[in-house]
């Protein structure tokens, strides 16, 4: 069993839709949880991170973590064509600012159709 499981998609939605992206994990040692966005042929960029169960909002994005179920989600409200990208969930261990071991999901490809 992989430490992190993520549906690869692709996921195609109309502009303005609410998008839900999800990952499950098996390792209880993960301390913090992240979502990266990766445009084609570019490096991933960090969208959001959280280290506790519950919701965290940033504009149109909401990250949700349920540690008891080992399940994390990213919701995108009012999706835009510019949101079309691959979204990677990631989970990490280690000291803030120090060496960190991060395990990534395989990514979900999202296409938002105008």
């Amino acid at each position, binding site marked *: 069993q992989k430490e992190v499981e993520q549906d690869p998609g692709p996921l195609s939605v109309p502009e303005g839709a609410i998008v839900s992206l999800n990952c499950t994990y098996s390792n209880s040692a993960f301390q*913090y949880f992240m979502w990266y966005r990766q445009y084609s042929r*570019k*490096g991933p960029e960090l969208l959001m991170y959280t280290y506790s169960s519950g919701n965290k909002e940033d504009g149109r994005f909401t990250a949700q973590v349920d540690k008891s179920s080992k399940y994390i989600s990213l919701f995108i409200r009012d999706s835009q064509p510019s949101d079309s990208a691959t979204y990677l969930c990631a989970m990490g261990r280690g000291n803030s*600012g*120090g060496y*960190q071991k991060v395990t990534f999901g395989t990514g979900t490809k999202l296409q938002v159709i105008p």
Partner: protein
Amino acid sequence: SQTIHQWPATLVQPVGSPLSLECTVEGTSNPNLYWYRQAAGRGLQLLFYSVGIGQISSEVPQNLSASRPQDRQFILSSKKLLLSDSGFYLCAWNGVSGQIYGYTFGSGTRLTVV
């Protein structure tokens, strides 16, 4: 502000040829540096990490090596490339003056071994 540079952006190399990919970070000191490889459908695989000059840790046995000759420089090398070395190579960093959770990635090098 901190920036990470990675080059070249694309590279086509014949089997058996050597490889040298370079990554540098600006605007910080003593960063933790990472080399990842991204293959289609397999997610991001950590290859090497370094917490200081001359300190290299390898995560998986392979045909590649890494070196850190200066504080903010990280080099990925191979003496003889294999077809299986093709992929998207990403350098990343974190540290007390940058991303405290997760990494900041470079723009990547797409390597095709022919």
